[in-house]
């Protein structure tokens, strides 16, 4: 019998999906990966309910109440949780709003923005409430591994995933570690 596949879930919180694009940049290597892993909840599968997983990969920081909820759900369901990309590690570009009060940000976007018609701050109950500040993942839940980059290159993701799945110590070559 072949070995059971490793179950992986991914999601993008306050990110731009750039890290997921980088994952897709694995190109032909995706076939090799698909033989060893099975995707659970992920933007690539559109599965809505997160099952129990071996590995969770999260891009993006935490900027609203829904992000907190999803992140805690990932922590509860994933044996190993990995923060991927600058936003997950330090808040990244979205965290540049931490320089301002939330009220200032909302007013700048929705009341004083150029070309607005009937300006108002959105308050539909379906819209997740924004947090006062954007936070990196490790400030909310325990994170097991970190992979920097904006985004991390496909090569870096490949090195990382291979080392992790084969139980080797993580050691990225110099050119695969960068913060931008």
């Amino acid at each position, binding site marked *: 019998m072949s070995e059971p596949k490793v179950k992986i879930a991914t999601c993008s919180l306050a990110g731009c999906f750039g890290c997921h694009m980088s994952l897709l940049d694995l190109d032909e290597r995706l076939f090799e990966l698909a033989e060893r892993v099975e995707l659970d909840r992920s933007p690539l599968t559109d599965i809505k309910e997160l099952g129990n997983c071996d590995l969770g990969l999260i891009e993006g920081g935490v900027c609203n109440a829904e992000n907190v909820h999803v992140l805690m759900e990932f922590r509860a369901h994933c044996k190993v949780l990995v*923060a991927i990309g*600058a936003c997950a*590690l*330090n*808040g*990244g*570009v979205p*965290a*540049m709003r*931490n*320089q301002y009060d939330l009220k200032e940000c909302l007013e700048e976007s929705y009341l004083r923005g150029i070309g607005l018609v009937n300006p108002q701050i959105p308050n539909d109950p379906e819209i997740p409430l924004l947090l006062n*500040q954007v*936070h*990196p993942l*490790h*400030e909310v839940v325990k*994170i097991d591994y*970190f*992979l*920097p980059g*904006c985004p991390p290159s496909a090569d870096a993701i490949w090195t990382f995933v291979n080392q992790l799945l084969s139980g080797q110590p993580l050691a990225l070559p*110099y*050119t695969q*570690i*960068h*913060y*931008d």
Partner: protein
Amino acid sequence: MSADRSFTLDGRRVPFQDGQTIMAAALAAGVYIPHLCFNPEFAPHGSCRVCLVKVNGRVQAACTTPAAVGQAVQNETGELREIRRGILQMLFVEGNHVCPACEKSGACQLQAVAYYVGMLAPHYTHFYPRRPVDASHPEAVIDFNRCILCELCVRASRDVDGKNIFAVQGRGIQAHLVVNTPSGKLGATDFSVTDKAAQVCPTGAILTKHRGYEIPIGQRLYDRKPISVVGDVATLAESKGGRRHE
């Protein structure tokens, strides 16, 4: 007897001259000790603590400790790497270092030293301090979010340019870089991008305007090789990827 004046650095014999620090002797011998506030052209400052080494079993800053006969100095050990990584992580969370949105990225000494010590993530809780950006000068911009208080601009402006434009004010966590004018604005000073002070910043705190993102990703100073091989951005000529305006 000068041939006998030496200490050992990770087991290797390093000669020194009287008055030389461990850092200066290591530099002359071609051994890299990670550093940020140290620049060989200036008197040592000893503030960033990144160059901590073990001297006869005691942790000390290599840039301020005089070399002495018979010292056994450790530099590249797992323990020191851990300490240095922790210092780098604290420097990162104390300011706002958004590498993807910084023109200095790729040629930044703070980033390069963090790569060198294997920092993958900031680990600590971010301060997200609220600090201003001063774009009042026509040729240069100061982003105080990126200042690590190394005082190299302070030293350069005072000791080389003779202008005394910068100072560090306040103590402890309140310490911050200030510009020596009533308005506190760089635009009100006689600062010039040809000043030494414009060329020594190890981070993206002091930048020359109109030159952002000139070098493509992949070809920047620290993209291919580590700082231990490439050298400090502030001590390299512009033709070699440094940021001098000679």
